[in-house]
């Protein structure tokens, strides 16, 4: 009886702004997360456009060095914590309950709170540009003692990251609980869609490392204001200790941003190859191994700080090991394609591009894992190229592919396939024009985070800037395609992709506001 009553009660949910402020519905909250992350993606992307405009040619044209440093720092922070991470949480909100046959997330009110913390943190970060002395300018990595020298905006940044971390932790707890407790009867762990698996493991990573980030930025705060000397040698501390703690968070963080992407790719490829995912079990084990290894590789970000030989060798070997499970994933994707019946809709184009381009990012990661080569390339544009191959063509392009894949389900309409393909090709080509030359810049010796550069770096910087402007503009096309799809289009039907076999495709498109109120029984 109780369930009938709640169902009736939920039918009359408020409309307008109050609906979004008070919603506890996983679909609404998923939508909020996705729009928020897209807004942050455009904002942090426009910071990148300013950076590329300044770097278009040698000399200082548009920005002062101080503002330039603020842009690089905030571009990184907002892209990571404001765009990529919330986008994946948006996917988790929409898709995890639908894919495991659950009526909603385990903690719907917590879910609301997890989301609504984000705009507060974003406001703090954006407002910090207008603080005296401008925004935080010590890089997204916030290394002391430089960080200690900054003004009020540095404290605003600490507070914003605390809020973002709180949101992530609560979101992660919610996802873990949902997956472990709310699966449809008969859905064993090893029957879960791979996307759900990747998010389960990601959520554990979040719970493990976000508190580490929170502690290290609190130590920064007390060093700044309360007379501690955690990171100051003058008081018996050590600046490099910050880097150890930060990267103990930071390296798992990299996988927090890529594992759900692997989940999306592992969903899209089988659909459009019309063939079951190859090596499901080994995929699960590969994701788990990557997650475990991520805890013992952190100091590969610190090879130039001056570690003992034993330390350098340990972190080099452990880092190289990550290539094995990552390779397994790529091999499995290729084997899934092999002898499939392949078609090239927009989500599939994104997924295939991710497989190729992420692999390039993986290879440059392997190059960087080798201590002697890393000594040459650390803090150069080679590293910038590497992590954009991982985070843009790995994470962001998976997100785009995932949006095209599930838009018909979410909106009930098919997106415009022609425009979607234009968006894909513009993004993929412009991405490579932007970031591939950065490998050469790094090899030739251009440090990262500099507002101006020696003349021999001019040509590739110009190419990269042109690519970046196209890449940025192409994302407005993405916005247009999504809005167009929401407003109308051919009816998608329950299952627009004939190769899709997960539970969400058994529902109508869009799914009812409350779906799976009676769970599907899979034990039959």
């Amino acid at each position, binding site marked *: 009886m109780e369930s009938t009553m709640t169902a009736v009660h939920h039918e009359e949910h408020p409309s307008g702004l109050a609906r979004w402020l008070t919603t506890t519905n996983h679909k609404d909250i998923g939508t909020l997360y996705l729009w928020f992350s897209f807004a942050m993606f455009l904002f942090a992307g426009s910071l990148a456009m300013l950076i590329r405009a300044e770097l278009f040619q040698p000399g200082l044209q548009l920005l002062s060095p101080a503002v330039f440093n603020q842009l690089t720092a905030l571009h990184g922070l907002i892209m990571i914590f404001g765009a990529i991470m919330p986008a994946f949480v948006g996917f988790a909100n929409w898709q995890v309950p639908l894919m495991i046959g659950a009526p909603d997330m385990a903690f719907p009110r917590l879910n609301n709170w997890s989301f609504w913390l984000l705009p507060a943190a974003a406001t703090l970060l954006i407002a910090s540009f207008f603080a005296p002395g401008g925004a935080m300018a010590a890089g997204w990595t916030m290394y002391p*003692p*430089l960080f200690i020298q900054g003004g009020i905006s540095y404290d605003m940044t600490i507070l914003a990251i605390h809020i973002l971390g709180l949101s992530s932790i609560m979101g992660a707890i919610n996802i873990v609980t949902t997956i472990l407790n709310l699966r449809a009867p008969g859905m064993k762990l090893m029957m879960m869609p791979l996307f759900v698996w990747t998010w389960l493991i990601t959520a554990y990573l979040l719970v493990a490392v976000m508190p580490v980030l929170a502690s290290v930025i609190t130590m920064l705060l007390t060093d700044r204001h309360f007379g501690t000397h955690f990171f100051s040698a003058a008081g018996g501390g050590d600046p490099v200790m910050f880097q150890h703690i930060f990267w103990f968070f930071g390296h798992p963080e990299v996988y927090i941003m890529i594992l759900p992407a692997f989940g999306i790719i592992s969903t899209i490829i089988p659909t459009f190859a019309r063939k079951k995912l190859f090596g499901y079990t080994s995929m699960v084990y590969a994701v788990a191994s990557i997650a475990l290894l991520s805890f013992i590789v952190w100091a590969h970000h610190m090879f130039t700080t001056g570690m003992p030989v034993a330390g350098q060798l340990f972190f080099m070997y452990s880092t190289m090991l990550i290539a094995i499970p990552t390779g397994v994933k790529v091999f499995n994707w290729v084997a899934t394609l092999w002898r499939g019946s392949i078609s090239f809709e927009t989500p599939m184009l994104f997924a295939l591009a991710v497989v190729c381009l992420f692999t390039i990012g993986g290879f440059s990661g392997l190059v960087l894992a080798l201590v002697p080569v890393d000594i040459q390339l650390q803090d150069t544009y080679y590293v910038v190229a590497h992590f954009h191959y991982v985070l843009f063509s790995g994470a962001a392009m998976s997100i785009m592919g995932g949006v095209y894949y599930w838009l018909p389900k979410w909106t009930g309409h098919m997106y415009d396939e022609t425009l979607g393909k234009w968006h894909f090709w513009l993004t993929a080509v412009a991405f490579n024009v932007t970031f591939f030359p950065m490998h050469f810049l790094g090899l030739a010796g251009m440090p990262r985070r500099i507002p101006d550069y020696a003349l021999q770096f001019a040509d590739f910087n110009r190419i990269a800037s042109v690519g970046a402007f196209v890449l940025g503009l192409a994302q407005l096309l993405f916005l247009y395609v999504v809005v167009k799809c929401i407003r109308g289009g051919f009816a998608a039907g329950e299952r627009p992709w004939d190769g899709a076999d997960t539970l969400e495709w058994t529902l109508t498109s869009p799914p009812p506001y409350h779906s799976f109120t009676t769970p599907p029984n899979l034990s039959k």
Partner: protein
Amino acid sequence: MRPPSLRILLASLVVGIASPMAWAEYALNLPAPATDIARRIYDLHTLILWICGGIFLVVFIPMFYALWRHRKSVGHEAHRFHEHTLLEWAWTVVPFFILIGMAVPTTAVVISMKDTSAPDMTIKVTGRQWKWEYEYLGADLKFISNLATPQEQLEQQAPKGEHYLLEVDRPLVIPTGKKIRFVITAEDVIHSWWVPAFGVKQDAVPGFVRDAWVKVDQPGTYRGQCAELCGVRHGYMPIVVEAMPPDKYAEWMAAQKTLVAAAQAGAQREYPLPELIAMGERVYMTNCVACHQANGAGIPGAFPALNGSKLVNGPPAGHLDRVFHGKPGTAMQAFGGQLSDMDIAAVVSFERNSWGNKMGDGVQPRDVAALRRTEK
């Protein structure tokens, strides 16, 4: 509107890659190595690149074959297989052995890089916002190396020179063929001393001493930059090293000592104010202009103005004290340890009589020497 044709994309790619003429002027690889270590790093990188390229082909030729032949549009039916134990074990174990193949030569290079034992000489490198200080240990020679590119070139008011942003007023000079150990530290924030041709990049951590070594084969000028974000002028902290044959190096060292002695003698006499101001302008443009700006207005909210400043327009002793000791907890450094008595006297005199400041008095080098004596 149709999506861009694949054929056009491929054609432009082929034209781009197949015209080496167009690529000749672009630097595509690590710079030419000047030390044995840098050469080994270069070769290691080439080796790894070939291995990665090979793996890339092994993985993606089958993938693109499948994308071409196993298309739905040519009527290919999907097969049903979705596991293959032997294959899955193979692509787990084979990469492991490839990795061991990479790790063995790399480990040897790591061990050589870290072997700073038995150097022929040692140089202490100190990073400061935003310049490098070099101290020849045991030779009683110490100097600061600043960016030499004029501000006008940065602001497009003058054409940029060949070594724009990679030129300094006083390069580090070292002998070729000798094992030189660098002990590296910093005074304020973390910097990183990096000369690509040497294969050396070592973070300079305040309060800690790290080391690195080089043995340069050929005489020449080698350029690098600070590699760790260290604040506003991080991009303006170049490193220039002149490597010369040992006999020429010995001549250079002797000349430096004569110069130091001459400067010490010169600091004894009394200088007329206009001469001090003229000298001080040069010192200011090298050491102070980054924060306090050429017009003395500073950067509001970040660096205070000197024009009209209460301290500058107060008694000379207080002004000298601030320049000499700096202001702890801010970016204002203690220049007492960095600049000569002559330079400090000149720059204080310059600041007191520039822009709107019209004090009409100055500081003599011997005043600075007196302050320095009270420190000891």
